[in-house]
């Protein structure tokens, strides 16, 4: 096995929306810094934007303010947000949009040259090629090295500081180690924890990228980083079967949520994101399903435009309409809730960060879906966070250099890094040890089995689709027991090639994330958001829980729960969370 060692001033893990924008920012502003961006697939189409997107969902439209966007997010999450993070993000939504337009993104304008808005917070675009545009911009930065098809599995960390990362090629027999004291995690959220909508052949026909498997969350959890709000799961309301987005028909052509009796039910349950979903679940449970977005009022021209809009974002939906012979004009679009995802760009799960997106691990930063506290980021919020983190990293490197405190990397640390890398490489080898005698080796537990088992446990005991997203403490106890069982048998898995190794590590990271989700669901003893976190032992909302549920994995593997008071204003950027807002700490 070939071993490759690399060093950089800045290491960016994950080449999706936030990671690419951070790399672009460092390329534009800090040409003296050597930056490596590592991506497990290819930055051209990796992450959430692979198929495209057809609106910018977070934009401060004419006459509105950044604070109004913050207020909207806060209301939607019933108070559990970081207003400081939301405001710093909202202040940049429009400037990053302008950069993307200058790079080639097509945005709809009216005759006065103004962007055409869709509702209060959206603008319409042709975003089919948004990711290739962004990737091209990164490629043009001479100080940025792009490593595609390299999967990072672990951070190198000690005593609350990061020193690099370890991974392997997904295509050839090569292990990688990176020595770097400034690491940005931008790996996205986690899909595939729960049994999906289409568990058979189309198991990956989900809304969130099935390849976002929570790697960054897992790396942070293992390193002892503080995490926040993993109990605020995100469950999307989507077109049935194709799990295609619904905003284009709900907001775009004004389709209302109706049940099988033709009744408009959306106003009955409230219009927050979670209530729109909960309403649909309830209508189904009480026998008034299936539920629809009623599109039958649209014109033939509108129908044609919807075919195009979906081809630019979720082509399976257009194929479904055309193949069935009936489009959205002829038949309302059936909708359903997805399996729960953990995603800090829609709800608030992720790393606990300061306003500059520093995590609680020294030298480690987080941006995009992996960073917590700031929901409704969408594309532009992820871009904004990439920019904020990149600026903070450059500033921190600069102050370190000025203060000449660069004694971090001592001989002692070098030795420690080498030891960590050796141990990790040995672990990779252990999964690959039978690759050359596959015929002789009979494994009873396979990668697919592990995935199915994990998803079944989460579905049945931690509030998946089959349980109408509900759970109780007893069930969560069982969920933990079974996920821990799966963690124990994980080392039995065998990889015949590097692709198998990737799949094994994707399961490993999802199991780590599952345990954190379970601990958080158990800790919040109320039901603040229907469906997102519906605890049947505590079916009501309680003002006592108007606070964050945070967590930290202790060296013995236990998850410590930390309750924190709401951060309501910008607190500065010290980044070290020793403030007196800690209310309680206990083991999950």
């Amino acid at each position, binding site marked *: 096995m070939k071993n490759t060692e690399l060093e950089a001033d800045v290491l960016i893990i994950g080449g999706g929306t936030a990671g690419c924008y951070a790399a672009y920012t460092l390329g534009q502003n800090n040409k003296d810094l050597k930056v490596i961006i590592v991506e497990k697939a290819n930055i051209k189409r990796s992450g959430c934007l692979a198929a495209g997107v057809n609106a910018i969902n977070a934009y401060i439209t004419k006459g509105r303010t950044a604070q109004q966007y913050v207020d909207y997010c806060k209301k939607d999450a019933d108070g559990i947000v970081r207003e400081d993070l939301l405001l710093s993000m909202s202040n940049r939504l429009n400037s990053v949009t302008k950069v993307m337009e200058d790079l080639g993104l*097509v945005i709809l304008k009216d005759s006065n040259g103004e962007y055409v808005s869709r509702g209060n917070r959206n603008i319409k675009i042709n*975003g089919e090629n948004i990711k290739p545009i962004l990737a091209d911009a990164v490629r043009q930065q001479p100080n940025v090295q792009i490593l595609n098809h390299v999967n990072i599995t672990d951070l190198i960390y000690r005593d609350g500081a990061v020193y690099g990362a370890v991974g392997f090629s997904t295509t050839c027999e090569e292990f990688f180690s990176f020595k770097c004291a400034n690491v940005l995690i931008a790996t996205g959220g986690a899909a595939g924890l729960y049994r999906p909508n289409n568990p058979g052949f189309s198991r990956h026909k989900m809304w969130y990228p099935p390849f976002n498997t929570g790697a960054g969350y897992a790396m942070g959890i293992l390193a002892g980083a503080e995490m926040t709000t993993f109990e605020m799961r995100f469950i999307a309301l989507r077109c049935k079967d194709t799990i295609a987005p619904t905003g284009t028909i709900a*907001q775009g052509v004004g389709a209302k949520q109706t049940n099988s009796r033709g009744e408009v039910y959306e106003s009955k349950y409230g219009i927050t994101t979670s209530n729109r979903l909960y309403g649909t679940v309830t209508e189904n449970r009480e026998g008034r399903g299936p539920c629809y977005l009623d599109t039958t009022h649209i014109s033939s021209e509108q129908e044609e435009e919807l075919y195009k809009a979906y081809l630019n974002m979720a082509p399976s939906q257009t194929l479904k309409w055309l193949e069935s012979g009936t489009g959205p004009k002829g038949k309302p679009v059936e909708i359903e809730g997805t399996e729960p995802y953990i995603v800090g760009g829609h709800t608030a799960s992720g790393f606990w960060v300061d306003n500059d997106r520093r995590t609680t691990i020294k030298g480690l930063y987080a941006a995009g879906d992996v960073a917590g506290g700031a929901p409704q980021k969408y594309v532009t919020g992820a871009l904004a966070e990439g920019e904020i983190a990149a600026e903070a990293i450059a500033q921190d490197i600069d102050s370190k250099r000025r203060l000449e405190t660069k004694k971090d990397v001592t001989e002692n640390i070098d030795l420690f890094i080498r030891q960590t890398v050796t141990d990790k490489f040995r672990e990779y080898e252990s999964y690959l040890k039978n690759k050359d005698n596959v015929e002789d080796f009979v494994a009873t537990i396979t990668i697919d089995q592990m995935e199915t088992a994990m998803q079944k446990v989460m579905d049945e005991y931690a509030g998946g689709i089959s349980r109408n997203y509900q759970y109780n403490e007893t069930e969560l106890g069982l969920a933990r027991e079974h996920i821990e069982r799966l963690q124990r048998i994980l080392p039995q898995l065998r990889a015949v090639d590097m692709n198998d190794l990737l799949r094994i590590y994707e399961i490993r990271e999802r199991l780590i994330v599952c345990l954190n989700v379970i601990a958080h669901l158990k800790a919040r003893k109320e039901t603040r958001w229907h469906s997102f976190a519906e605890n049947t032992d505590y079916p009501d909302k309680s003002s006592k829980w108007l606070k964050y549920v945070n967590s930290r994995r202790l060296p013995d593997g236990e998850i410590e729960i930390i309750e924190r008071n709401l951060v309501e204003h910008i607190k500065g950027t010290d980044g070290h969370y020793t403030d007196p807002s800690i209310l309680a700490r206990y083991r999950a």
Partner: protein
Amino acid sequence: MSIFIDRNKCVGCGKCADVCPGNLLKITDHKAVIRHPEDCWGCTSCLKECKVEAVKFFLGADIGGRGSTLTYTYGDDNRTVTWKVISPDKVERVIVIDTQESNKY
């Protein structure tokens, strides 16, 4: 839902394998092969990379598929793209999109 690779058309250039966000494609005997068809997300990145229209997209029967395929061609004008739905009895439905035009909704 997944993709289907026409081995007669595939030239084994590897562009689809390079771009797939799930690392699902590989080149075996100079042809692209999908390792796990059930792991395809349906993003169609591979269709957009393929210069010989060897990659076709379809919906699995479990999500309403009826055997039609979807193909993608980037126009010679460097501006339009053509999506084609071809039914099992070879009826074609073509949608042309101007990449410089925004979505209306």
